């Protein structure tokens, strides 16, 4: 069992830099944490989830689909030269990634996504390195390798062959660590939020949430799109062409179901033409529609939409309101 200091992790990352396109937790200019290369800012393993949509590594805000010079062949986008190595997902982020892997491969396989995703390596960071000294849930799988912080060092746990290969390359000054007590702490983390969204999900599916509720919430939504753009399981995109000096470039970019134009048809007909329906859509999608389609919730409680929504209508706060108001126990 390897137990590494931050410096040792950094040395390890430097050693694999020639092989991988690194996306590791770094601090940007004003201290904001992000995922990037080691040259983009100092490594920042402590502090919990990275604010940006973590799945943007494989599904960026804009990406090229193909180009075509006038009358030439269509040239599809080529995969990057090196596989991507991500460090710094939380356990929740790994759940999200697992889901969107499934989403992008089911029925039709989205080759643009898998161009980046295939061959990539995911390392979760967990344990005693959350914001303000908080404890981050241990993933225990769903990634190639996990770095579990015991407060001082990070214990490496490999879960896949690729993970084991990389673990071998890690040079640790200590080879012991108390993983069991950390796992115990992880198991004892409160699951109130999960219970809340599960309950909210049941209430929505049982049609217990009246339309008036969505009107009230929708009144506060300014359609900034941040909730979608921050959410690791939001995958909607828009496609458009641009012509640069005779070369057509087709690109796709993140879209948001909170926008009126998202479903508006050429005739003006719009199945999601009011903001209450759109606000409902976002919550309903993760807590009800996907339960019907995939058999499980597709919100993994990463907490980003609650952070990103400027008017406090992220999924946790909305779920809390739903449970407070409409669950039997609270219904008078």
């Amino acid at each position, binding site marked *: 069992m390897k137990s590494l200091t931050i410096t040792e992790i950094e040395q390890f990352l430097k050693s694999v830099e020639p092989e991988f396109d690194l996306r590791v937790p770094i601090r*940007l*200019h*004003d*201290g*904001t*944490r*992000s995922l*990037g*290369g080691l040259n*983009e800012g100092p490594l920042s393993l402590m502090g919990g989830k990275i*604010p*940006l949509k973590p799945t*943007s590594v494989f599904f*960026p*805000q*804009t*990406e090229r689909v193909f180009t075509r010079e006038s009358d030439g062949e269509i040239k599809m986008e080529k995969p990057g030269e090196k596989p991507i190595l991500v460090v710094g997902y939380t356990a929740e982020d790994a759940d999200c990634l697992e889901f969107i892997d499934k989403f992008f491969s089911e029925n039709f396989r989205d080759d643009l996504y898998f161009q980046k995703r295939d061959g990539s390596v995911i390392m979760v960071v967990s344990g005693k390195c959350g914001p303000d000294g908080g404890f981050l849930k241990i993933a225990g799988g769903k990634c190639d390798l996990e770095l579990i912080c015991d407060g001082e060092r990070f214990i490496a746990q490999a879960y896949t062959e690729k993970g084991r290969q990389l673990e071998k390359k890690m040079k640790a000054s200590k080879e012991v660590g108390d993983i069991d007590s950390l796992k115990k702490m992880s198991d004892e983390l409160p699951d109130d939020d999960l219970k809340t969204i599960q309950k909210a999900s049941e209430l929505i599916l049982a049609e217990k949430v009246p339309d008036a509720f969505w009107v009230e919430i929708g*009144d*506060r939504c*300014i*359609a*900034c*799109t*941040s909730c979608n*753009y921050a959410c690791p399981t939001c995958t909607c995109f*828009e496609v*458009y062409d*641009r*012509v*640069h*000096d005779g070369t057509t470039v087709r690109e796709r*970019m*993140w*879209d*948001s179901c909170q*926008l*009126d*134009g998202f479903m508006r048809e050429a005739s*003006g007909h719009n199945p999601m033409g009011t903001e209450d329906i759109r606000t409902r859509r976002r919550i309903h999608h993760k807590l009800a529609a996907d339960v019907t389609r995939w058999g499980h919730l597709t919100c993994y409680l990463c907490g980003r939409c609650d*952070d*990103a929504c*400027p*008017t*406090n209508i992220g999924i946790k706060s909305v779920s809390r309101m739903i449970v407070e108001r409409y669950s039997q126990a609270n219904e008078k």
Partner: protein
Amino acid sequence: MKKTLTTCPYCGTGCMYYLVSDENNKITGIEPTANHPVSKNWVCVKGWNSFHFVNHPDRLKVPQIRKNGKMEQATWNEALDHVIARLREIRDKYGNDSIMFFSSAKTTNEENYLMMKLARAVFKTNNVDHCARLCHASTVVGLATTFGSGAMTNSISCVDEADLIFVTGSNTTEQHPLIGTRILNAVQKGAKLIVADNRKIRLARHAVLHLKHKNGTDVALANAMMNVIIGEGLEDKEFVANRTENYENLKKTVEKYTPEYAAEITGLKPEEIIEAARMFAKAKKAMIIYSMGITQHSHGVDNVKSMANLVMLTGNLGKPGTGVNPLRGQNNVQGACDMGALPNVYSGYQKVTEENIRARFEKAWGVENLPSNVGYTVTTAINAAAEGKLKAIYIMGENPMMSDPDQNHVREALEKLEFLVVQDIFPTPTAKFAHVVLPASSYAEKDGTFTSTERRVQRVRKAIDPPGQSRSDWEILCDVAERMGYKQMKYKNPGEIMDEIASVTPIYGGISFDRIDQLGLQWPCPDKNHPGTPVLHVGKFTRGLGLFCAVEYKPSMELPDKEYPFCLSTGRCYFHFHTGTMTRRSRILDREERFPFVEINTSDAKNLGIRNREYIMVATRRGEVKAMARVTDGIVPGVIFMTFHFEEGPANLLTINALDPEAKIPEYKVCAAKVRKIS
């Protein structure tokens, strides 16, 4: 991947975020910052899409010169030599004041400073102005008169602390979205909200009181509120006595504005006015937030003064959670004003008419005989051009064809010019009239600073290289100055320009790129150790005592009548910015609002047999425009609303060229119109 911290190029809220760019010199997205005091974790939909126009194929990439009526590509050398040759000729033939410079609220402080320096030091004219004329000129004049400082008195974060927020003439959640959300949150936490606006804007749904007063009757409303406050003894006597002057005059003027009298003018119920007055006066901390609904009138300055009066009367100044808070529309309209891109002042609002100030600038700039006469404004310049008095305009990053009132009049003016230079990032409708077009770089391709509506000076950073041969505005301006033989306009980088600005501008005295590296500073910031000023007028007004300016209600210039029965009000929508040059080239934003539209009340539409989404004709005495009807209860009967984003349905073909006598701001918010079906 590279992530560059910068400031949003859209509204004056001044959100900062990172531009994400790739190895191919292309911006692929944005990433919010987690630490910014205003935009912590957040940006609005325009912010999220603010990178998308940068790589649009329409970007101007090569200088062009008109030859035999046709635009032809040219080298920078040819283009700039042509520019100075023609400007010299015109100056020598018609005099210094025959040339006008339009600066831009879209460009950086450094570039605005250079533009006014170019106009004054090199071309020896005070003919320099920018689009603040069209949005907040009334604020600059009105608040400078009453308080001595023409800017937002408080900070955006003050919204969190207010007990009562009075929003008028601002559709905040759409035009300053992240200030709007603060208001929504304050209301969630118990603050009271009064909205005075005759459109049912989002904020109105959260207001305890929604006053739908008629467009242009704000003075009557404010005077009546003050009438009630004084009548019921609710004024802050101590504040009035210690901190203000000219109170008796105000008291006398508002005497006649009883709620009943004002009700007749405003179309409100007297009780509504009384209620608003009481709530405002009784709140511990009340703030006014206003925007173009107050300023864009032929009596815009009066409106602003009324807001100042109301706040002084209730003592809501000089402390957090209060104040008169004009929300500046453009990302850098505050800065462009601060930099003296105005015909009457140098940077820091130092008057060109004062000899000692001129002497200081003469020394600093190494020139003699700086002009002392106040120059043309954007609006009077167009009039002067139409009359043949003005011969040349050098436009940097403005689009008067779309933004100025009465488009036909503007066209006529531009056609009459002997020489027009347009320096821009896109081929705007204005550029069609240009003799020389100079390709500039966008905010993502240069360094500098923007000053947000809360007077926060913050960094703009270069993320990628400019496309083609385009160059930063500051480099172009310096090049022009050098070609004119002026030696003191050479800089290695915009940081050096800021150092010069700080040395000649007391309110920016302590500002430097080092100090604002991450957070920005709010002016006044007179020296290197000053922490900046979140709240103005603490303990003392900039001018000493606050001046009550009693004003009478004056009707708007052109009121609806039999022939033109509707009141046409103009403005913006959430997804587009101003003349749409950037937002209409951003995919998602463009998709949201694709067609020129006109909001019309359901009952009016029914009477005229107009269906939703049907194209109709809107006409005023200036012309007519085709737009898609948006039938809604969000607007009161008798009023129609259009935006000026659409080249193919330009609202400013319809608006009236009626100006406020002092501020010279046009009356965009009221003119008489009619609508008809297209059969």
